[in-house]
């Protein structure tokens, strides 16, 4: 029997980036807020200091910062005819755990989604006609527009201290920036990162080919920065240990560096770590949450009553929390009905390796998580898809985020995968290989979805999340198209050998791609096809808000975090300005 605790105004489930933002804003408005984090506390000092933090075996290979699969795994299958099996080691994507969540080990790549992305279905039909989009794709509009979110993008980027060059200031295209981006109201808070040498070679080739290269917006600091919360960050020194690691220099925007210290000083906020939330509790009508039940590190269960429940775990875990709590109708792929688990999407990436002779030194180890140079010419709706028969796109980026010895050993096609020849080849190519990433969109289908696994359970005897996913034909075509263009750029870069690898089915959990899982608890304007309204408020239980990339109806070709932060600020603003004054559905169903 769970011990019932004293009621609070707000309980936040998961204290990562979004949890910290929601909790900070609500605690600052005077509400009592409890943050429940399943993992442990950790700070830049002492936990993230070197030399330990540069232990590649511990963090990159053994996934030292990720969700513990021995206690809480997920199961995976490519389609409903298969039996899903638990993922025993993270590879394809890397859900973080502990205080700060995945916001600690991210790369700092900070892209806004575009005007088109938020009205994707409307835009595709208007531009290409009703029959152009593959009928299997369940793309939707978001129920919100870019213009409404712009101020919140701006707020989040200033919290992070993002460095970049605006490409579109209030509608006016700016030299040096991304001409395809949607308008922004002011410049980035910091200047762009320094380019890597591979980026310089890419920029030259891309410019010659008539494309529009620019430096990637980055939340690795390009100079000392004090954010609007009063927290100070140091400049990045390009050590090449961002993704899968924490930053020892206070140079990467993470919850620990940009918001948590302020949150924890607020007397209205209480952080409880090693608190595994088991479910959101509902009243007898199932229309209102009464709080949550969680287990502490010893397994003792507690009921924490609250007026407002905000779910801010990792995207996939958000969907699982809704399913475990029975909020919203689970999605059924046979009928296409139901909302929780619907429109699960991923990211469709490709790789191109550019092998130079030994006179060209790339120095891959001098890098940051977001120090790439890229073009957006083949991303989003930035080009005419009419002749190509697919929707979506990818950015093509010269990107090496590291030259770490265990992970980085590019070899040209035809090289044996082990033995002496392989060793000779990695020595030959280590410092003479540039890399291009195609980072592309992922469109939802009727058959890609999330539900609870019927067989496998976690350490608390609750069903694991089951992921059913295969790359849609649309995305396979899209990524091949983008990789082909990247290979052309690679040839122009003056290399001896260029090798392109477009992602092909079947999707496998055993090859790293990105951690950008989206959907499952999507936002929209119709309660029959979305779980949340435009304020990230549950259609089914009005005092439950679900903040995360789980809200994306489909995943554009950009990294998700910037849009996530914008949505969090947008949502919490609506809670403060509207919901608290008159608790109830903010959009009538």
């Amino acid at each position, binding site marked *: 029997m769970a011990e019932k605790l004293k009621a609070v105004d707000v309980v936040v489930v998961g204290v990562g980036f979004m949890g910290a933002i929601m909790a900070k804003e609500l605690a600052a408005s005077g509400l009592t807020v409890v943050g429940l984090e399943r993992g442990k506390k950790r*700070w*830049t*000092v*002492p936990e993230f*200091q*070197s*030399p330990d933090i540069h232990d590649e075996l511990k963090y990159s290979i053994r996934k030292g910062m990720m969700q513990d699969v021995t206690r809480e795994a997920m199961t995976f299958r490519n389609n409903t005819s298969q039996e899903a099996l638990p993922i025993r080691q993270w590879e394809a994507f890397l859900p973080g755990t502990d205080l700060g969540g995945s916001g600690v080990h991210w790369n700092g790549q900070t892209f806004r989604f575009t005007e088109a992305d938020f009205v994707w279905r409307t835009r595709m039909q208007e531009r290409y006609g009703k029959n152009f989009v593959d009928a299997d794709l369940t793309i939707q509009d978001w129920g919100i527009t870019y213009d409404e979110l712009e101020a919140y993008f701006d707020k989040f980027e200033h919290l992070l201290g993002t460095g970049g060059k605006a490409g579109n200031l209030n509608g006016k295209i700016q030299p040096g920036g991304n001409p395809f981006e949607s308008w922004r109201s002011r410049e980035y808070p910091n200047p762009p990162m*320094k*380019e*890597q*040498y591979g*980026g*310089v070679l890419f920029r030259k080739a891309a410019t010659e080919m008539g494309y529009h290269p620019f430096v990637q917006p980055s939340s690795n600091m*390009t*100079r*000392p920065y004090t954010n609007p919360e009063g*927290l*100070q960050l*140091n*400049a990045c*020194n*390009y050590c090449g240990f961002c993704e899968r690691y924490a930053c*020892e*220099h*206070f140079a990467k925007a993470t919850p620990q*560096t940009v918001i948590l210290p302020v949150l924890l000083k607020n007397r209205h906020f209480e952080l409880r770590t090693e608190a595994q939330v088991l479910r959101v509790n509902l009243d007898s009508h199932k229309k209102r949450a009464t709080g949550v039940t969680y287990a502490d590190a010893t397994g003792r269960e507690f009921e924490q009553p609250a007026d407002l429940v905000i779910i801010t775990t990792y995207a996939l875990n958000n969907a699982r929390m809704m399913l475990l709590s029975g909020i919203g109708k689970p999605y059924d792929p046979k009928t296409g009905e139901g909302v929780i688990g619907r429109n699960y999407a991923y990211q469709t990436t490709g790789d191109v390796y550019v092998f130079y002779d030994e006179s060209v*030194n790339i*120095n891959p180890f*001098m890098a940051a998580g977001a120090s790439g140079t890229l073009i957006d010419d083949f991303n989003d709706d930035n080009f005419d898809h009419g002749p190509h028969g697919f929707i979506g796109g990818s950015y093509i980026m010269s990107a090496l985020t590291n030259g770490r010895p265990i992970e980085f050993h590019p070899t040209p096609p035809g090289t044996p995968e082990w033995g002496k020849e392989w060793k000779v080849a990695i020595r030959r190519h280590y410092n003479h290989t540039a890399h291009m990433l195609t980072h592309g969109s992922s469109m939802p289908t009727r058959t890609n979805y999330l539900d609870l696994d019927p067989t496998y359970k976690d350490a608390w005897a609750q069903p694991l999340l089951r992921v059913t996913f295969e790359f849609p034909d649309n995305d396979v075509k899209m990524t091949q198209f983008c990789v082909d263009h990247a290979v052309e750029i690679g040839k122009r870069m003056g290399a001896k050998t260029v090798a392109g690898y477009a992602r092909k089915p079947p999707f496998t959990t055993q090859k790293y791609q990105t951690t950008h899982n989206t959907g499952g608890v999507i936002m929209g304007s119709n309660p029959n096809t979305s779980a949340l309204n435009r304020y990230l408020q549950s259609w089914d239980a009005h005092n439950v808000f679900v903040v995360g990339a789980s809200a994306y109806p489909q995943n554009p070709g950009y990294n998700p975090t910037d849009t996530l932060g914008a949505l969090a600020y947008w949502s919490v603003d609506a809670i403060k300005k509207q919901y608290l004054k008159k608790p109830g559905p903010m959009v009538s169903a």
Partner: protein
Amino acid sequence: MKLNRWMLISTVALSIAGFLLVRAFAGESPKVLRGDPRRGGEIVAIGTDYGVVACARCHAFDGTADGSGAFPKLSGISSYYLAKQLRDFASGLRTDAIMSAIARRMKAEDIADVSEYYSGVSGTPTPAPQASPDLLALGTRLATVGDQEKEIQACEACHGPQGRGESPAIPPLAGQYAPYIAFQMRMWRMGYRKNDANQQMANIARRLSPQDIEAIGLYFERLPQKDFAKNKREP
């Protein structure tokens, strides 16, 4: 890249000695003059007839300086770092009552030669300073762990384990005189010194108390000054 610098410079005239292209980052690819340590040694010993004072007067032949702590040890610091400091003294980016005037008189090859010389010499161990256990504990914590409240990382995150430096751009601190380290930290803190990348040091020094600064200096001076020159990497 392993170039035999002795072979490179043995007989050729200095002006055509060695030029290496540093391709660290785009837009930052200065040509580095590879110095002649033998000629550097001459300048260290007797100076030049155009007013460059013999370096050894203050820094000693082996770079150990005079033990007072007013002048830094130079032995085993990368030639890249030493040359950058001399160029910064000359340009005014870094200022010092004594060094600014001397550096302004140095020609580019003098800077390269002297830097090459000091990067290759081994210093003499000096006695460890007295320090209270409390102060040493504070210095050890700041240098190896950092401080969460002050939002500063461990000094050794950049200056290397045991203060060995991250050659060539970041200098070793092991064995360096505590009064010199503390003096420089105060210079950073007060804004008189600002010749590093991104004001990193000023940003950190501003958050340190006078006691922190003293403690950090004592921690590093007590570390053995290894022969950093032996495994020094050149750009």
